[in-house]
């Protein structure tokens, strides 16, 4: 066949793409029409958009404050100056409490000191201090906070950033350290979005003098990341397991549903607590190379099979049965190999405890077993005849289904990329390099969250499975994988989308709860739950340390929940024409 011969097929596949794009556009318009009917839903959308914008532009919105180290890309705030708290709207943000060591000055024979910012870290990891311009000198104290006479220190009149220290202080050897309290010019704090001359911290500062407003802005990044990551991972895992359970039914379904029952039997937060405790000793998440390739490869095999099979030989369903004893031999020898002589000793390389090794091997067996169960029906029909020509055919541009195989190509490239970019080529693939406490709560939340999705998807699949078009697809001999991916799942996504949106809000709540208990973010991190828990030490008096981070959590969660509620109306079949 030549290029010209394929004109018709190419036209056909283009027409299909165009048609589906038009359909999508129409669906979106109709959905928006329903969505905007509800004021609450629109408010929710605006809330979500606003919080996303804030998290993206946190760098620009955050007030530059001496307590915040802008050079540090990890957004860590450091503590090397006198801690103090300021109430919201109090005029304290531009006040600096500078400690000056008289002993050092005496050693250097100096008679004064610069007004300096706290130590900061430059891009090349060196330390530096900014020279500040003093606008108002407030007080002079000794190291115990006792007020000394202000006339003992004089501000240089020409450049306003040098303090002359009087002879009387220098000669008083009982004084080793003094504290200068002054206001300084802080232009960086005056942002375009703040009214002119507005130099107060609107949310107050914490006991380390850090601007709470900036911390909350940065906290939005952490919370949104956690929300999206956890929700996405749970959706993926839950969908795979739920659709297997719903589609194959029977014993597979029974086993999976009993497992979800176990997960449902323990309240989510307690389950997550237990799981975080179990993950405590693990500090990086790596997989052995062969294992990292096993997962994408097995997916690839299954995917390729259903696609190629169906597109190249439609209607061909009668393949010779695979040799049953042979299959049993393969399974048994695999299990024996894995259990006895397998590389379990350094499997995962995660923790050095015998229990973990056994748990890991169980998981490995479960995954392998799952693949076997999943592919059983497909395997029954497997035939290795003509694999090469089928592969070539599927890459052929003229094949109207070739855009399906494009996705398999992407999976393959992704698995290669995973290998190339991860780590040291030491037989291991680092999945999560910095497996810190935030990652642990994310993994724990995924672990506790998937059964909900699995049940949801199972119900949907059971519902869609009985519809006429699925029966039609089955009657023309389409394989299971194709029916699942092309016919059932596209018709079951609607409640999934709603659950996904609601789950982002729920995850943000749970993650902040775990952080509040002290299992989540590291101390001092800009995470909302952690901020509330840090503020708890000063709670009734300095209520703002608790009030504002909590409001941020409530705002974000409310936004996602309202959004999800609005989407529920959109996908509700009652609202379809």
């Amino acid at each position, binding site marked *: 066949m030549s290029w010209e011969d394929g004109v018709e097929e190419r036209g056909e596949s283009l027409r299909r793409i165009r048609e589906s794009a038009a359909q999508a556009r129409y669906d979106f318009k109709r959905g928006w029409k329903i969505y905007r009917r509800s*004021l*609450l839903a629109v408010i929710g959308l605006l809330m979500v958009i606003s919080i996303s914008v804030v998290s993206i532009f946190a760098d620009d919105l955050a007030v530059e404050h001496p307590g915040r180290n802008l050079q540090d890309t990890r957004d860590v705030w450091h503590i090397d100056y006198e801690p103090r708290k300021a109430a919201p709207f109090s005029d304290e943000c531009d006040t600096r409490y500078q400690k000056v060591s008289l002993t050092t000055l005496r050693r250097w024979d100096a008679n004064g000191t610069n007004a300096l910012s706290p130590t900061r870290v430059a891009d090349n990891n060196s330390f530096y201090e900014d020279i500040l311009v003093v606008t108002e000198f407030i007080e002079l104290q000794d190291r115990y906070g006792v007020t000394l006479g202000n006339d003992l220190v004089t501000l240089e009149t020409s450049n306003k950033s040098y303090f002359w220290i009087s002879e009387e202080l220098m000669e008083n050897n009982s004084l080793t350290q003094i504290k200068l309290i002054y206001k300084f010019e802080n232009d960086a704090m005056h942002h375009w979005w703040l009214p002119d001359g507005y130099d107060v911290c609107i949310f107050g500062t914490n006991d380390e003098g850090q601007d709470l407003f900036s911390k909350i802005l940065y906290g939005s990044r952490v919370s949104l990341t956690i929300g999206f990551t956890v929700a996405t991972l749970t959706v993926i895992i839950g969908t795979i397991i739920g659709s297997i359970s719903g589609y194959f039914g029977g014993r597979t379904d029974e086993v999976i549903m*009993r*497992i979800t*029952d*176990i997960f*449902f*039997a*323990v*309240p*989510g*937060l*307690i*389950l997550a*607590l*237990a*799981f*975080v*405790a*179990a*993950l*405590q*000793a693990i500090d990086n998440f790596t997989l052995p190379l062969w294992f990292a390739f096993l997962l994408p490869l097995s997916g690839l095999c299954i995917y390729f099979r259903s696609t190629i099979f169906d597109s190249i030989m439609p209607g061909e369903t009668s393949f010779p049965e695979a040799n049953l004893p042979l299959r049993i031999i393969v399974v048994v020898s695999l299990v024996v190999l894995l259990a006895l002589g397998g590389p379990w000793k350094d499997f995962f390389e995660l*923790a050095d*405890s*015998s*229990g*973990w090794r*056994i*748990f890991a091997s*169980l998981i490995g067996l479960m995954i392998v077993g799952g693949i076997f169960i999943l592919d059983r029906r497909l395997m029954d029909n497997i035939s290795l005849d003509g694999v090469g020509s089928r592969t070539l055919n599927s890459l052929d541009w003229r094949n109207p289904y070739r855009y399906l195989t494009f996705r398999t190509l992407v999976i393959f490239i992704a698995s290669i990329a995973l290998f190339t970019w991860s780590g040291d080529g030491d037989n291991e693939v680092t999945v999560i390099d910095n497996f810190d406490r935030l990652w642990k709560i994310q993994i724990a939340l995924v672990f506790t969250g998937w059964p909900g999705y699995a049940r949801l998807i199972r119900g949907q699949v059971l519902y869609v499975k009985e519809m006429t078009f699925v029966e039609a697809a089955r009657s023309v001999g389409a394989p299971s994988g194709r029916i699942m991916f092309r016919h059932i799942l596209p018709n079951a996504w609607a409640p999934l989308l709603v659950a996904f949106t609601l789950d982002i*809000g729920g995850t943000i*709540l749970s993650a*902040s*709860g775990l952080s*509040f*208990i*002290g*299992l989540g973010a590291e101390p001092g991190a800009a995470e909302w*739950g952690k901020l*509330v*828990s840090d503020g*708890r030490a000063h*709670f*009734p*008096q300095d*209520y703002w340390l*608790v*009030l504002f*981070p*909590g*409001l941020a*959590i*409530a705002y974000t*969660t*409310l936004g996602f*929940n*309202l959004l999800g*509620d609005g989407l529920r109306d959109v996908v509700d079949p009652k609202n379809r024409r």
Partner: protein
Amino acid sequence: MNTSEFIVRRILLLIPVMIGVTVFTFAIAQIIPADPAAILCGERCGLVDPVTGKTMLELQRERLGLDEPVIEQFRLYLINLAEGDWGESTTYNRPTSDVVRDAAPVTLEMALFALLMAYPIGITLGILSAVWQDQVFDHISRFLAIAFVSLPIFWLAMMLQLVFGTGTDVGGICDPIFGTEGGCFPIYGRHDAALTYPDRSSSLCDTAITGIACYPSWYPSGGTGFHLVDSWFVTDEALDNINPEYASNYKLFDDTLVHLILPSFTLGIASAGSLLRYMRASLLEVMNEDYVRTARAKGLSESRVIIVHACRNALVPILTILGFSIGGAIGGAVLTESIFAFYGMGNVAVDAIINLDYSVLMGVTLITAIIFLMSNLIVDILYGVVDPRVRLE
């Protein structure tokens, strides 16, 4: 299927789940990176026992059965569980079953009281918002339903402390408005600090020391742990020995109740939110049924139609949520307990994780699972009784 058959079937279905939960807790305990034997023997681990020639560490491992293969350990764990030996807590130096026995009623009382507060609020708002569908009240209460679910429970708890408690320079609306001293509600603890409550943990009820029986002989010794109930059964003898300010059954009850209100309200608010939505949806569905139309056609008043005909049927599906909301409330208790200083399962679990006390963690997970499964079982059975159609499945 008749009722008893239905109940038996439901109970039988629980068995695999319970076995699964024990496997699960056992697996978690295996993964936790702590050696309970090393924690138990502490500094003496290196000492050598002259008789056997083994170190203390080895002896402890032997005693706990840690030198056995995992399968054998699991078998031992199951046997011990069945015999009521839930292991030894390394944090509290007490049997885990005792720790859990003391903590569970605290959480359960709080959770049940929370649902007691949440149900009337949720159901009333739900009914009203269904009746006034698409009116202003409906929109407000639907917003409230979502807002209730969105509030971080630990934050809400602290805000309630701020507003209804006292001892602060800010907040505390009660003192200026109602002229109370010390806020509307106490914000910490299960009881007033001045009160030694006669229960299992206090020495007051140790008959060996004081010679006083706190509870009548037919009552569980040391009480059930549910103080709202216990306080009515405390004997006069015991009442004489506690702070005279609280020396009556009513005063004890009152003290417990007042301390429960804020934590339970915090805990119940999320359940109230979801209840509101379910009640509204359920009632709206019922309102379209034929029998409601018939009732209206008969000329009954609208309120009678809604209360007698519609609500009674709309409430049936609401029953199913009861089981789940108990689970949710116990999960949420982890957060409220630490704020209100209640020593229930939540606090115990957090302590267990911080100290890597694996046997307590297993115990708490197991007991929450048991409570949750039991409440769901009861709800299922009730549902089957109320709505016979369920049994036909």
